C-alpha cells in the first residue's frame, strides 16, 4: 500500500525540488564560464563567494521548514525532501569554503589560518562547517538505522549550524544589517515554532492521564 501522494512526492515534487537545488549552481557555473549571457558583474570572485554562502544558508533554512510544513499540512511526504535539501545546503557551504580557500585566497595557507583564528566571523563560519560534516556523513539510510535515536539527537546540531551561519553573515556586513536580520528573524520563527510544539506536547503528556480518568 502506498501513502497518499507518495507518487506525487517521489516522481513530481522531488525532481522539481532537485532542479531548484541545482539551479543556483548552474547559474554561477554559467556565469563563471561566460555562458548563456549570465554576468557575475565586475567582481565575479566576490559574487560567487557570496552567492555560495547565501545559498548555503538559504537551503539550511529551507530544510528547517520541512518539519513545520508536515505538521501544518499533515502531509508526511514532505519528509522525502529533507535529506536532499540538507545535503544541498552542505554542498553550497562546502563550495563556499573551498572557493574561499582555493580562489578567493588562492590557497594562501598563511592568510587562511590567520583568518580562521583571528576573524571571529570566519571562526564561526568554520565552526559551522565542521559541525555540518558529521551530519552530511550520517545522512544515509544505513547511518540512520545504525544510530537509531541518537541520529535525531546528533542532527539537532543543524539548529546550531544555522545560528552560526546567521551570526557569521551578520558580522561580515559593513553596516547594512537588514538582510542578515531577516535571516535571524526567519530562523527565530522556525526555532520558535519547534519550541512551541514541544511545549504543547509536554503539556499534553502531562494532561493526558487526567483526561483519560475523566
Amino acid at each position, binding site marked *: 500500500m502506498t501513502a497518499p501522494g507518495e507518487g506525487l512526492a517521489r516522481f513530481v515534487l522531488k525532481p522539481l525540488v532537485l532542479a531548484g537545488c541545482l539551479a543556483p549552481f548552474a547559474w554561477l557555473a554559467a556565469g563563471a564560464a561566460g555562458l548563456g549571457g549570465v554576468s557575475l558583474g565586475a567582481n*565575479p570572485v566576490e559574487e560567487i563567494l557570496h552567492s555560495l554562502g547565501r545559498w548555503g544558508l538559504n537551503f539550511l533554512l529551507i530544510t528547517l521548514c520541512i518539519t513545520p510544513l508536515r505538521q501544518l499540512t499533515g502531509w508526511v511526504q514532505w519528509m522525502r525532501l529533507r535529506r536532499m535539501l540538507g545535503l544541498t545546503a552542505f554542498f553550497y557551504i562546502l563550495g563556499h569554503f573551498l572557493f574561499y580557500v582555493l580562489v578567493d585566497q588562492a590557497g594562501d595557507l598563511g592568510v587562511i589560518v590567520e583568518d580562521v583564528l583571528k576573524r571571529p566571523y570566519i571562526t564561526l563560519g568554520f565552526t559551522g562547517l565542521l559541525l555540518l560534516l558529521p551530519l552530511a556523513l550520517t545522512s544515509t539510510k544505513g547511518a540512520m538505522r545504525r544510530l537509531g535515536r541518537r541520529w535525531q539527537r546528533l542532527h539537532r546540531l543543524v539548529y546550531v549550524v544555522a545560528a552560526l551561519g546567521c551570526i557569521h553573515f551578520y558580522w561580515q556586513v*559593513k553596516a547594512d544589517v537588514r538582510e542578515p536580520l531577516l535571516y535571524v528573524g526567519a530562523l527565530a520563527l522556525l526555532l520558535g515554532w519547534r519550541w512551541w510544539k514541544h511545549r504543547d506536547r509536554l503539556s499534553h503528556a502531562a494532561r493526558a492521564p487526567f483526561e483519560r480518568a475523566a
Partner: protein
Amino acid sequence: MIIRQSQDVRPSEITSEGVYRSRRAFLAWIAGTGLMAAAPDVLARALASAPPAPSPLRYTPNPRLSTTERQNSWEEVTTYNNFYEFGTGKADPADNSRGFRTRPWNVAIEGEAEVTGSFTLEDILRPHPLEERIYRLRCVEAWSMVIPWIGFPLGDLIKRFKPTSRARYVEFTTLLDPQQMPGQRYPVLDWPYVEGLRLDEAMHPLALLAVGLYGKVLPNQNGAPLRLVVPWKYGFKSIKSIVRIRFTADRPRTSWEKALPREYGFYANVNPGVDHPRWSQKRERRIGSGAFWDRQPTQMFNGYADQVASLYGGLDLARNF
C-alpha cells in the same frame, strides 16, 4: 538662501536669471534623456549633436600625475560602486540613481574662511581648467580599480575662499534628499554623509575634485555632479555629490568613523601594514585584471608614498588609521 559670489567671479560672468531658467529647462530635458552636462559650452555641444551618450568634457591630460597601469573599463567603473545613498549593493547605485537631478546644484561654503556663501555649481567650476588624471582607487574592502578622472585640484578651489588662520580641517557633506536617494530612507549611516581632510591634505596637489571620468560628465552613480578623489586614502574618503564644504578648527566627525570607530578612522590612509579588524589589507583584487584568483600586494599610501608620506611625519599610522 543667500547667494553670494566668490570674489574672483566677475559680475559679467554671472549667469542672468533668464539664461539660468532656460538652461534649467534644457537641463531638465537632458536629465530626462539620461544625459547631463557640466559647463555651458558643453551644453551647447550636447544640444548640437545629441547622441544618447554622456556629454564629453574639454580637458587636458596630466600624464605627470597619472599612472600608466591598465584602466578599468567604463562598464566596470560605472556598475560596481559603493554609494550607500542609492543602496548598499554594488549594482544599486547604477540602478537607483538614473533619475537623480544634478541641476540646479549649489555648494555651500562655510566656516573659517573669508569668502563664504552659497554658490551655483557653475560658479564653483568656472575658473578651473579641467585635467585628466589616471589614479588608482583602493577600496577599504580590498579591491581596486584604475580610473581616468576629469577634474581640478581641490587646493585651487580652496584658495578662492581664503581659509582663515583658524581653519585646520575641511569638512565635506553629501546631499541629503531621501526622496531622490532611497538609501537615505534607512539609517545604515547617520545621513547625510560627512567626510573630512586636514587642510594640508586638502591642499595637496593630488587631491582632486572630479566632475567627470573617461572624458565624460560624471555618471550619477559615481558621485555627480561634484566629488572628491583622494587617491592615497581608502575610497570612502572620496565623498560624492558634495553640497557643502566647511572650514573648521576642529577635526570633523566623519560618517564611517561615527558608525564604526574601531574599523574606520579619520585618516584612512591606504596601509598594507594595518589590517581592517575583519580582513587583511595586505593585498587587493584589481577588478577585471589577471586571473580570477589573482591578488596583488597593496602599496603604502596606494603607491603615492613619494608624494604624500611627508604629510604624516611623526604620526603613528597604526593608531591613526
